[in-house]
């Protein structure tokens, strides 16, 4: 434990000057600086910089294979980036260098939570248990790291009760109260998606990263998801960063959109900016770079919202 704490200390910087790079939100919760990730000879993410504003819903979009999930994995500690810096700023002013934290500390200390593209619930555990596992840190403390808990002391019992209350509140919110005691793996797909988001929220995150939350949802479930995400943004101190292909979700709920293609940022702005950005259109339609330049010249746009990193 002492070693881990030491590393944490190292990774915790205070009074860091605000983000590098021009533009972007004024009060960022996450600053990604010159992030590069290489796998052998393949550069999945190349010199990417962007910011996530506090209290915003930011979308990370791009064609398949653009490197979005790789960015997520770097932010949430599953990959160690080849180069670059990822800073997370909590409200109190603590700053964490996420790329230096051990995997689990990204959630435990920096309070970044995530969901997965191919849903990772604990399938044989119940819905309620899934949520309680997410409250590991406070409950663990309350149980005196199991020593007091095993003796059945009342301090732990009340903590557990509070945990169940909190879980129950989330179950109400996502409409799964009736299924609380069923195995999570038995839920329909859309419910599993929402449960995974609720589980991530039970860790009280500062930043919630959602990897394609609307994938596989029907229009009604998609609309419910939008409501849920807005609720998270408005009622909790949680900023949202999401990867999404469903443009109806992205355009409706995002405050800001970052567009990736081939590991490079090609655009960054509000939904309205992105909607009209020629590079984005070109990227999605699969046009060559020269043609993009030609199109730009025709339209008379030479480097508008789109900033290509040098």
């Amino acid at each position, binding site marked *: 434990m002492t070693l881990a704490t030491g590393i944490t200390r190292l990774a915790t910087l205070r009074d860091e000057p605000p983000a590098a790079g021009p533009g972007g939100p004024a009060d960022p919760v996450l600053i990604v600086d010159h992030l590069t990730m290489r*796998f052998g000879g393949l550069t999945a993410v190349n010199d990417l910089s962007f910011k996530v504003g506090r209290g915003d819903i930011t979308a990370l979009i791009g064609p398949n294979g653009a490197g979005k*999930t790789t960015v997520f*994995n770097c932010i949430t500690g*599953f990959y160690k980036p080849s180069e670059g810096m990822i800073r997370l700023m909590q409200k109190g002013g603590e700053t964490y260098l996420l790329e230096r934290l051990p995997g689990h500390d990204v959630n435990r200390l920096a309070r970044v939570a995530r969901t*997965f593209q191919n849903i990772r619930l604990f399938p044989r555990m119940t819905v309620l248990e899934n949520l309680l596992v997410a409250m590991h840190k406070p409950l663990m403390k309350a149980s005196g790291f199991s020593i007091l808990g095993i003796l059945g002391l009342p301090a732990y019992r009340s903590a557990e009760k509070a945990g169940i209350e909190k879980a129950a509140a989330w179950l109400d919110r996502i409409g799964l109260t009736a299924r609380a005691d069923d195995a999570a793996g038995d839920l329909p797909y859309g419910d599993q998606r929402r449960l995974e988001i609720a589980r991530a929220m039970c860790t009280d995150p500062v930043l919630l990263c959602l990897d394609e939350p609307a994938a596989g949802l029907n229009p009604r479930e998609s609309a419910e998801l939008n409501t849920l995400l807005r609720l998270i943004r408005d009622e909790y101190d949680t900023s949202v960063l999401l990867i999404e292909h469903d443009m109806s979700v992205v355009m409706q709920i995002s405050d800001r959109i970052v567009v990736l293609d081939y590991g490079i940022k090609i655009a960054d702005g509000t939904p309205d900016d992105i909607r009209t950005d020629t590079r984005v259109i070109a990227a999605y339609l699969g046009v060559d770079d020269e043609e993009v330049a030609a199109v730009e010249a025709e339209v008379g746009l030479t480097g508008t919202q789109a900033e290509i990193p040098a």
Partner: protein
Amino acid sequence: MEFFAQQFINGLTLGSIYGLIAIGYTMVFGIIGMVNFAHGDVFMVSAFIALIAFLILTTWLGLSSVALVFLIVLVIAMALTSLWGWAIERVAYRPLRGSFRLAPLISAIGVSIFLSNFVQVVQGARNKPVPPLVRDVVVLYQNEQYTVTLSYKQAIIMVTTAVLLAGFWYLVQKTPFGRAQRAVEQDRRMAALLGINVDRTISLTFVLGAALAAVAGTLYLLYYGVVSFSDGFVPGVKAFTAAVLGGIGSLPGAVIGGIIIGLIETFWSAYFSIEYKDVAAFLILIVVLIFKPSGILGRPEVEKV
């Protein structure tokens, strides 16, 4: 120096046997990602098959040509052990595809326990000695104190290993089966969509692994002249160590790993302590798995999130 040379020859012989077994581990791991824990016991079964075939040929049929006996025993052992390999995969592993993570390994442990006790029940618990097939040695070097020798046995083992490995290499590199095997290894579903019979390819992989284990079993019997029902476990673990050391999934790695393990074991016994020779192999296994699980020639695994 002479002592060293002699130990080197001994180690190479032992390493050949480990390498042959290790290929079975590495191929199965490559294609379905499981540790075939029972492979060492398949090797032991093959040694018993070779033992009985040898006894029948020499005592009942009265064959006396050493080369002929050896070849027939080898072919019989390979054929019948292949059937074991096939049957085990079919009964104990194939139904488990898509089951939970540890199911195949637990099933393999079950097969391993079954095989060794099955042989104990049907053949008895005592060691089974056979008269040496060949006794001659070639003196490679001699001075007043030392002689460095290469026995015919050792020569046969190394030559057989080399020849069969060459044939095997051709099989997996140049034939449609080899291509199918590599395709299934990389993407089972895609391979199936392209018309490759995945089940048959996996079956054949087990059959090949078992056949090579049978070669090892026959050579083991030839070398040590004795076998018992419990002889699968330790050589099995050592061959697995060899496969891991060479880089699991890599065929040349398995052979290289086998030879390295054979050499280390021989030199350890010769220079340090023979009592702890198995400890040496187990320690290597632990150290490699902890510090370089991709081995010498293996590719590192990228965690899929």
